[in-house]
Every structure is written in C-alpha cells, then in structure tokens.
C-alpha cells in the first residue's frame, strides 16, 4: 500500500515537474535588528545593482520582489525603482550609486537637498538586489519544415537556467547594514516538438523572486 502511495506521489511530482519545468532553490539569510512591530508608516525602496560589466540586475526582478512584498503586506509602501532613481538623479545611476552605506551618508551630508527629499519620503530601509538569471547548458535538436501542405517541427530541446541574487538591507534609522539574504534557483526547461513545439519553461526567476520576497516580508512585516 505504501509503495503505491510512493509511486503515486512520484508520478504526481513528475507530472507537475513536466508541466512547469523543474526548479530547485535555496535561500540563506542573516538579518539583525528586525523591526518587531513592522515598519509603521516608513517606506522601503528596492534597487538593483548595475555597476558590474558583465551583468545587470534585471529591473523586472526588482519590480517582482517589490510587488511580492506589497502584495504580502499591503501596509508596507514600496517605492518604485524607476521613480526613485529619477527623483534622486544623478545619485543612483550605475556610475554613481553608493556601494556602501557610508558612501551614501557622505553623499547626503554634502547634499542637504537629497537628505531633505529622503526625509520627505520617510524611507527607512533601502534594499539593494544584486544578481541575475543566466541561461546555462542546452542540448537537443529540432527540425522545422514548411511545405505546400503545411509545416511543423519535430525534435526535443532542453536547457537550464540559473538564478543567483543577494539582497542587502540598509537601515537609515540604525545607520547600518542590517541584513543579507541570498537565493539561488536552478531549473531545467524542455521543448518537445511533434508538429507544434510545446515549451515547458521552468520558472527560475519567479522562484528566486518568491524566495527572496518571502524572506524580506519576514523581516519587514509584523504579520509574518
């Protein structure tokens, strides 16, 4: 009987895996000074790191994490990345964005107008997300043909995607970096084709977004 249950579970797992691609993910976190009562009427801004030469943190990933937090606890106000970067131009461009909290504090000490604007936004936490999702190994082959009677494809392709992100939390009240959360996710996507190619895409970036978003919610929200 137990063997039947195990077989059933394995079949269900395989079916789910095939329907959406397989993703494995891990999340690590190290946080201090968690606000036990939540962040009150303060705001949070989430920004992507874009200073590396070989990758950029995707704006849609940053937006996804912000949406995850805002939908998990609607009392948390998350300021949009583009809106913030435009409001504080030129201080958060790839060339000028502060890499350390001390750099940021030095900058606002020299630019009182930036400090005033930050105060008006009531921003207590600035969260920097650094990382990207890259396409890994791929294999398989597919042939497509078109003739007078129609067309179609035949074959099979598979590829992997790897997501690797780290979120760093700056607390302006404590004047300190209060946490780092990292997540990795790996997934295999498939594309079988018998006449019509059917892509089965592994939601690697979405899984990484949920992983990092959940941990940030636990940090920021009193409900979690």
């Amino acid at each position: 009987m137990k063997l039947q249950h195990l077989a059933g579970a394995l079949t269900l797992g395989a079916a789910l895996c095939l329907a959406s691609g397989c993703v494995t993910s891990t999340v690590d976190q190290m946080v201090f000074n968690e606000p036990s009562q939540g962040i009150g009427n303060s705001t949070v801004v989430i920004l992507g790191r874009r200073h590396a030469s070989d990758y950029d943190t995707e704006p849609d990933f940053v937006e996804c994490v912000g949406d995850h937090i805002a939908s998990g606890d609607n009392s948390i106000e998350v300021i949009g990345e583009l809106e913030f970067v435009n409001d504080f131009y030129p201080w958060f461009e790839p060339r000028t964005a502060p890499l350390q909290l001390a750099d940021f504090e030095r900058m606002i000490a020299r630019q009182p107008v930036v400090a005033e604007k930050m105060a008006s936004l009531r921003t207590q936490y600035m969260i920097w997300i650094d990382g990207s999702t890259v396409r890994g190994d791929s294999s398989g082959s597919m042939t497509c043909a078109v003739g007078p009677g129609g067309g179609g494809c035949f074959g099979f392709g598979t590829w992997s995607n790897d997501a690797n992100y780290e979120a760093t939390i700056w607390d302006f009240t404590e004047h300190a970096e209060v946490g780092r959360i990292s997540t990795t996710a790996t997934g295999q996507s498939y594309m079988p084709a018998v006449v019509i190619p059917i892509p089965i895409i592994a939601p690697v970036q979405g899984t990484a977004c949920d992983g990092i978003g959940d941990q940030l919610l636990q940090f920021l929200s009193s409900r979690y």
Partner: protein
Amino acid sequence: MSGLMTSVPDSKPLLWLAGALLLALLTGCGPAEVVVKGDFPAPTMEKLPLTIGVWYDPGFANHEFFDEAKSRKDSSWLVKSGEAQVQMWDTLLAGMFARVVPMSGRPGPGQMNPAVDAVLVPEIAELQYAIPAHTNVKVYEIWIRYHLQLVTTGGDPIADWTMPAYGKTPTAFLQTDQAAVNLAAVMALRDAGANFATSFARVPAVQAWLQQRLGNEREASL
C-alpha cells in the same frame, strides 16, 4: 442586342501596390535610422550660485552618427542624437547652476553675448555603438566621448577636459534593433549627465576657478 462587355481594370490600385512595394524595397536598402528620444530627469543637488552660459555648436545640436555597412548582410546605421543631447544638457545645467543662459554665438573676441560667469561648450569627440550583430552578445551599447570647454564670454579658456559616457541595453527582448539602440543612447546620455554633475567640481582647472569665484568654504562643500 448582344455584346461582350469588357472593362478595363482600374490601374490605380496596381500602381499604389507597386509604389508601396518599391518604397518597402528602398526602405529595406536604406540605413537603420534612430532619432534618439527620451526623458531626462532634473538633477537633485545643491545648485552652484553661478550664472553659466551654454553654447551648442551646430555640429553638436544637430549631431548625427553614420556608420556605413561593412558587408552586404549588415545594414548601415544613422543615429541622430543632437536633439536629445540639447534636451539632456539643458535639463542638467538648469539643475546644477543658479541660472543658465543660452549664448547667441560661440564665445570669442567681438562676439556679443549676455554677461555670465563662464560659458560651457560641450562637443562630441567620438561616438561608437555595438549591436548583437557585431559582437554576438545580447547587449546594445553606446559609448560617447565628450570634449568639454569652460571659457569666458571673451573665449579665453578656463578649463578643457574630456568625459566618457556609456549606456547599454542589457536585454532587447521584444524590441527592435532601433528601439534598443535608442534605449542604450538614452542610458549613455543619463550617464553623461551623472558623470558631469558629480565630477565637474573635481576637474582641477574648474576646481581652481570655483575656488577663485566662490571661495574655499563653498568650493570645499561641492
């Protein structure tokens, strides 16, 4: 009465179709053209208590970059960045200085211009671009090297320096080559603005001039 009714087919639609086909073919042969368009935010920073003049040479204000195709499978490119350059520099300088005055001519002896503390003359020394067809990397990039001059209204040099700017479009998913090049150019212009705003007071000759104009205390806070 019997007869065969014949009608001469209206040739106008055929002519239109032929014209449209010819136009499409000619368009396919022409260079890929990008007129750079974007929004540039005003800088949030302490304004320098100076009246700065700005002069855009016609070569700058109407700047175009043309790159001829190297082979038959490549296409030529024409990137028109002049209008966007002027838009970005006007917005930037208005946020950096207490007052910005456009000059009526290039500063020089005998040239009648409004009285200002100094005149900035930006020029594009070089512009390069890269698209995936060139590099096999899914990134669209633009590099600009500016030649910047700060002069008196009489044309005497105060400072003369070069400044790089770089912009890239990391992903061009669902975008045309033209849209991706435009976005890379807008990013390069934003980078130029950010670089200028944060490095202007650190250019040694500018620093010395600011010290003379504003005194040590004010200059040190920049």
